[in-house]
């Protein structure tokens, strides 16, 4: 079986990378292929990495409150590149009122502080559709 391929990135100016690093490591330990892009990634950089890495999943870590600006851009760029199948999940500090808005734009999962790592692993495994082998 092909390994699930995940791109983890921290968009925006914030440097608090504890959560992004811990989850990147947990997903890797759970058998996924993880590319951790690091800090200050623009939506363009993230989507082009997803394309290059043939990612199944993009995980965005946002704690600064900039999610309502960053997420729509990422989703729009994914659509433009024909990457609609990529499952996008967000982790961070997200006010309740923004949750339905993020869902409406196609973000599959939002993980708030205190989420067990196993829940995120399970969520990703359940939401990624196994792809046909390339011919």
């Amino acid at each position, binding site marked *: 079986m092909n390994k699930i391929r995940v791109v983890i990135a921290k968009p925006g100016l914030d440097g*608090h990378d504890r959560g992004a*690093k811990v989850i990147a490591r947990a997903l890797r330990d759970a058998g996924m292929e*993880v590319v951790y892009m690091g800090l200050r990634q623009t939506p363009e950089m993230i989507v082009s990495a997803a394309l290059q890495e043939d990612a199944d999943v993009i995980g965005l870590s946002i704690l600064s*409150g900039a999610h309502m600006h960053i997420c729509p851009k990422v989703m729009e760029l994914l659509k433009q590149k024909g990457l609609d199948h990529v499952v996008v999940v967000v982790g961070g*500090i997200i006010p309740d009122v923004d949750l339905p808005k993020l869902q409406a734009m196609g973000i599959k999962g939002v993980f708030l502080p205190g989420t067990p790592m*196993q829940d995120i692993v399970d969520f990703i495994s359940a939401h990624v559709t196994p792809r046909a082998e390339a011919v």
Partner: protein
Amino acid sequence: MKSTITAEKPAEREGTFTTISGRPINRLYTADDIAGLDYDRDLGDPGQFPYTRGIHPTGYRGKLWTMRQFAGFGTPEETNARYKQLLAAGGTGLSVAFDLPTLMGRDPDHELSLGEVGKCGVNVTSLADMERLFEGITLGDITTSMTINSPAPMIFAMYLVVAEKQGADLRKLSGTIQNDILKEFIAQKEYIFPPRPSMRLITDIFEFCARDVPKWNTISVSGYHIREAGATALQELAFTLRDGIEYVQWGVDAGLDVDDFVPQISFFFNAHSDFFEEIAKYRAARKIWARVMQERFGAKNERSWKLRFHTQTAGVSLTAQQPYNNVVRTALQALSAVLGGTNSLHTNSLDEALALPTAEAATLALRTQQIIAHESGVVNMVDPLGGSYFVERLTLDMEAGAYKYFDAIDRMGGMVAAIENGYPQREIAESSYRFQQAFEKKEKQMVGVNVYAETDEAPFPILYIDDAAHEMQIARLAELRRTRDTAAVARTLESLKAAARGTANTMYPLLDCVRAYATVGEMCDALRTVWGEYEEVPSI
């Protein structure tokens, strides 16, 4: 009786007991555990070398700690109103939280500032914003702490120009800039320039302040962010003090006399949840710093030996679940800081795992400190835990552990070299992951999260910051660019670059840039063109 206790080995709830940092703890501590402790050498009375028991002979009987609540959001006017409210509620010092564009040296109209203006703090783009931020507050009468690192020289210059315009005497002006770039590379990651030119900006500030603003605290060497990134208590202590040593060494290498600048260096620690471990950390910190300043640097001024520190309760311990529990956590953490002899304190608000605090939440956080100060009675004597078998054992072990880290970092060629090798970053990532695994297995517990969780929680009112501040700050910047003297801006930025290329102190050209209303982004860009930008190699 004693032998029956050990012989029977009564059942205990767990196989091993450890602190939140993973340090094993025995069932009982006795005189045997501190057999080698020498009162004069290891403790000393409060106010006496090596200051383990405190730097003031009278402790809080003389003066309570400064209750300094960190605040900032939206526009300078909104934050100005919050400051006036905190001062009216009995706060005794101000502490400025800047937004990410300001912290990263970007103007509000920069691509990377998208969605970030005014969100995590107040936006300050130019001198005009600094004037609005302190409108109606006399800078000569208060002390202000500013959490600013890479652009610390620019923001400090703005503060000085505002003070100057208000007619304050800079020789008497006091306050603090965090200005601790090493922990940015290690933990918080708000860096702009590479480590070595960043260190040069800091030694420029040491020199400038020793000459022109002698009462200013030039650097607040911070363990707070190191701890928040996942370090253990010992790693927080060791990396922070080793950062302090690095700054002193660079100052000495720049030709400064230790006793001319070290007294203006202060520290900033985290107050995490493991009560006694934290108290031991603060006590060990004072003892180590006194020894290191005397023995390693030959400091003769006792003010150079005395470690002064600010404490903030642990943001990372706060939970989005059952937020009222955070009031209790914060109170216990604050108590540990007080029992450890902190000189100033910020208590977090209950809603900070959800958003920036509301005015009500911020007031409750301040009241928590006031209750400790005025009701608990712990301020009536100095270092009440001194002599505790357990606390003294922990303090000695913290000290020994820190010296081991110092040796390792010294062997790497110092902290800048260790950072360039990624050493402290890796150590912290390991501890962070180890804690997360222990948390998942419920070996470490958080009430309301992995124990006693509730599935259906009522919604909690939070401060929601919209984009009005962003739009206003962009409009103001456009207006500023239209109305200021463009030639003066260009000229002063050129002199800044010339100073950066050479060896002249950068503070003087920066003051000129600020007076010409150059923006934070423009001043940082000028230095970016000379020094380039730092990029870390991402690793997990």
